[in-house]
């Protein structure tokens, strides 16, 4: 009975989480379905220009020790990994002179911008900095 009760409680909790995510307009999906918006990617471009561009270059192709964030370099580093890993890595390590110094919204906007630069499509809703959601979105080839 205890097991059933636990499972039931878990089911209710899961339903609530999914419902809450639906209310927020954010559900787990695939990159090809469009998990960020054009507006968000544009905001991310502004953050990138201010905080990332000096090392990773205006065209995201990197320079010196900063790797390219485009194309086969990006996919080599991130294919098969989740957006959660990508988001958390950027947040914990960047900008290199002062990691975690930007607001979470800026980091998730930069993630959107980099995805768009790698030709992943935009969609109607913004990508939220919610680890439970990001964990379910895999970076896969397209």
């Amino acid at each position, binding site marked *: 009975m205890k097991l059933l009760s636990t499972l039931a409680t878990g089911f209710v909790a899961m339903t609530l989480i999914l419902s809450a995510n639906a209310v927020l307009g954010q559900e787990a999906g695939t990159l090809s379905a469009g998990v960020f918006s054009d507006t968000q990617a544009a*905001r991310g471009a*502004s*953050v990138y*220009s*201010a*905080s990332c*561009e*000096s*090392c990773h*270059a*205006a*065209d995201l*192709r*990197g*320079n*010196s*020790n*900063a*790797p*390219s964030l485009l*194309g*086969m*370099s*990006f996919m*080599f*580093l991130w294919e098969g990994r989740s957006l959660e890993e990508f988001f958390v890595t950027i947040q*914990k*390590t960047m900008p*290199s*002179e*002062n*990691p975690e*110094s*930007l*607001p979470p919204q*800026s980091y998730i906007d930069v993630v959107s911008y980099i995805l768009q630069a790698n030709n992943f499509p935009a969609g109607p809703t913004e990508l939220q900095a919610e680890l439970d959601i990001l964990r379910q979105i895999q970076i896969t080839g397209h």
Partner: protein
Amino acid sequence: MQKSPTRWLTATLLAACINASTAQMQDYAPVTDAMLHDMPVGEWLNWRGDNRAWGYSPLDQIDASNVGQLQLQWSWALDNTGAVQAAPLVHDGIMFVPAPRGVIVALDAANGDLIWEYRPSPQTSSTDSATGRSAAMPATAFAGVGRGVQKNIALYGDRVFAATENASILALAASTGALLWETQVADPALGYHYTAGPVVANGTLVTGITGCSRYKEDVCFITGHDPRTGEERWRTATIARPGEPGGDTWGDLPLQFRAGGDAWVAGNFDPELNLVYWGTAQAKPWARAVRGTDEAALYTNSTLALNPDTGEMVWFYQHIPGESHDMDDVFENILVDIDGEKSLFKIGKLGILWQLDRETGDYINATDLGYQNIVNLDPVTGELTYRDGMVQRIGQQIDMCPSTSGVKSWRSMAYSPQTSAVYIPMTLNCALATFGPTERVLGGGGVGPVRRNNYVHPDSDGNLGEVLAVDIPGGEVKWRFRTRAPINTATLTTAGGLVFAGDWDRYFYAFAADDGEVLWQSRLTTSTQGFPISYSVAGKQYVAVPTGISGASWSSSLPRELAPELSRPGTGSAIHVFALPE
């Protein structure tokens, strides 16, 4: 390529405002070639002291008997807008400090009073909510290329010379900080920028560019400039072009795919031989398989000897032909005569200590300090051969020591003539590394992606940091000091029988040069980082050390990853000056 100074009228200059300091500047004696070579006791005129780059001060007021009494005399905060890797200079009681993003500060070296500050453009007090940029961050904070590193500047005549993150070289008046000229040397849009400043050699400013990793119709270079006008006198490529001598060492790669050879650490000068010694970084992308050639790729990962009057490459020595793991040998060149033999000592990321004949470039000796597993060294010939399985394929994981951080990087070693030893600041770690591909198109290239899992070196007892004292020329280890955090500064030796160095965990240490005993330590605002120096004013000896954030990508990431119990603030960049109590 000349820019008129009038174009830079917007430059902000906080000019001299202290009467005493103004009077001090009126007594400022022009820096001469003779001073640069035979540095007056108490001065610190080149980024590593004098032309020999020993990182050694002949001052002995502070010694093993009294160093424990060292006290902080003054500090000056630097911008937290980029990586501090400052090598301060001192002349006539004035300290000149290169700060991040092109800022240069002149301070009274005895008490820290501001004399002038040079900023490339106005400061802002606004907060941009979209970017999250701090209100305290200058508008120029991300204006240039790279992490805003400005390692060293140069003094010559009545001027201060610097090289910028926007690939220009400039001259300031030493007395006021006024911009006298600025010369655009390369296009920063192509990735070019400077992290190392100029050195003066026989009346020529010599400077090496970096940011050469991307594919383009151009190659990396070192230039010589007229210090009076900024006019470029010569430009020497660090990459052999097709059809030129050495051009066949890149296989059949066309010019645009010959990248790397960055000259990102300043060289030094032997006036008797009239040779400038300058290191070059490895070829790009890092891995041979990604680069597309197994050949030597001249003149990467080499020590070059240049005639400063013409830029002619008199000799070169390539330390690792066809290097494939980001193991630079670009670093400082220490000039020591051993039994009359004019030698040059150098150590690269692999932790192999090289001795070359600095007159001819001939190999003399090399000592593998024992922390690398990538190559085998033939000590008779100096030839390196890759160990089985270490020339990696794309996508093949290898277990490499060191990681791409190297056991030694830009943090210079120092030499003491008292002990005939070099003192090497090290970071002991390895990595499971998998090198990935890049697009071979113009604008592509770069270093190449690497999936890496770093780990603490198995022979380090869990420590990331080590100061290693090594006898030269023999290569015997005299002592080692280990600590959990990476050693994060250059070392400084003094005639007081001392070695100074600092770590990422904010500690600044004084060691006994002969046995490594820690005689004094202090804990500072953030990571010690840069080049400690010693100087005197009015008969009093001082020791200065910078602190700073960033440093290089691994400087921030390695301790976070491998020593997570350690932390440092993301602010606290400064210069700190110590002396004995009155």
